[in-house]
């Protein structure tokens, strides 16, 4: 509640959908997915939308990209009631990228993950955005308004202004500006997004736990466009939302209801609605291996 006493125990029991998580390819990836689900159990995270992107802007081969996505599919199969997949592609491989998205969707993935090989508004990315809009699936874009040395290292990282620009061209696309706490000037990006399409969301993941960021996101975009996520900062990000000066309803929207709305556009239900009671918060998950 606004200005009420923070109740951590109750907050941990709230079901949560983490729209930004990662798994690795290969056997190590499967073990990592077990750890991810085990920690999610402790935090009340009932489902995780996972991807295995090529980070740092590197132009990997289509074969390597497929291997990474296969790692996500393997994690989905290992934890079918906890992990959903986001298909990573590098849009410049036009033919291969479209085919890879179709392959991953056929395997049960529910969205697309893009990193910083291209700015989101680069015309090379448009066919991917168009496909996502047609299929009503979300596109999670690695974002930050970087400054200084970090910007020089990753100049094609999209920020809030880039996201607002692409949302003007594709207002029906479900776009997620990743990790407002993922580094970079989050106030800059949130201000840049204030007039963007209502189909553009932000996720709250990232290791920056700066106080006030969730409240600012809600003030700029409205609570219906703010999504819970961790990007591996699991306890920190749960704590950000629990600690934010927001109403209980707004926190519910962030923790799960907004992501459930995104799933509903594909005719899917969130796992917390179908999960047996007692499968989170320290109990073994239904599909734990």
């Amino acid at each position, binding site marked *: 509640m606004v200005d009420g*006493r923070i109740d951590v125990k109750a907050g941990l029991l709230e079901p949560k959908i983490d729209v930004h998580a990662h798994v690795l390819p290969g056997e190590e990836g499967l073990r990592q997915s077990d750890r991810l689900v085990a920690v999610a159990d402790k935090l009340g995270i009932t489902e995780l939308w996972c991807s295995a992107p090529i980070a740092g802007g590197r132009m990997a081969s289509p074969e390597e990209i497929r291997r990474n996505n296969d790692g996500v599919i393997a994690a989905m199969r290992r934890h079918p009631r906890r992990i959903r997949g986001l298909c990573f592609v590098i849009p410049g491989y036009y033919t291969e990228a479209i085919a890879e998205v179709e392959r991953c969707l056929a395997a049960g993935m529910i969205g697309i993950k893009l990193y910083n090989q291209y700015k989101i508004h680069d015309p090379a990315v448009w066919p991917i955005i168009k496909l996502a809009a047609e299929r009503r699936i979300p596109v999670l874009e690695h974002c930050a308004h970087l400054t200084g040395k970090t910007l020089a290292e990753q100049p094609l990282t999209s920020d809030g202004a880039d996201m607002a620009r692409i949302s003007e061209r594709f207002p029906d696309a479900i776009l997620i500006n990743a990790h407002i706490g993922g580094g970079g000037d989050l106030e800059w990006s949130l201000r840049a997004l204030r007039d963007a399409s209502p189909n553009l969301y932000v996720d709250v993941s990232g290791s920056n736990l700066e106080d*006030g960021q969730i409240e600012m996101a809600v003030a700029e975009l409205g609570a219906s466009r703010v999504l819970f996520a961790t990007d*591996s900062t699991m306890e920190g990000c749960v*704590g950000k939302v629990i600690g934010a000066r927001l109403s209980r309803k707004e926190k519910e929207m962030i923790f799960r209801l907004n992501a459930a709305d995104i799933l509903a556009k594909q005719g899917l239900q969130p796992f917390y609605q179908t999960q047996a009671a007692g499968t989170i918060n320290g109990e073994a998950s239904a599909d734990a291996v």
Partner: protein
Amino acid sequence: MLFDLNAWIGSWPFRSMWDNTAPAMLERMDRHGINWAAVSSLEAIFHRNGQPANEKLAEDVAPYSRRLFPLATINPSYVKWEDDLKYCHEKLNMKGVRLVPQYQGWELKSAMAVKAVQACTERGLLICIPHRLEDPRQAHPIDPGRTVEYDDVVYLLRAVPAAKIVLQNIRVTPAINALLQPDLIDKEWYVDLALTEVHFNQATLSFLDKVGGKHLVFGTHSPHSYAGSALVKLELLPVAGDEKADVCYRHAARLLNVNLMETE
């Protein structure tokens, strides 16, 4: 019971903050169930002569002296800093100091830093050193974006083995093993929970497996960071009983020489 060893009041130059006055900090602590906090002044970091800001801090927290414990910010590169340390300790009854070399143009691996740590240690004062105050990936153009690392603390502890040092806001990584070497493992050094992860960080789990709560304290980095994040980590911390009480408040009380019975 909770003792937050990592709190601030005052203005941060690069963004607006909530809860950055003494009364607002008290309300914030009440909202989060935190009983006591060690606070220092943000202005004292950035002013050339930080001593007036230290004195203003003491004045601001005086009405709440049972719950807020001021820490002096000492800049050993500034002339007559020894006088500031003496005054803050002897006249203002401060129980510890903050060292923030990142914003003051000096290094921890230096004779100057060793002299300051030695002076604090001779007075029995706790030394709190933040790894960072803000994420360097969003650094303002005039923010150097520098950080303090584990090896800085290793250097200081080898130079002043009796020092009591808390390295705040650092992420636990395998680099922490430098502090677990035989000559340092029983020294008075600590890290806090403010900005590290616990369960999805193998380095933290390994650290806790080796030493439990022996070198861990509760800290929130309020009001810079959400206190809720540190509370979630504390709630799920894989230590229990007396060890958990050490992390929650007993280490802090001992390090600051505070008798908590007298604060009730």
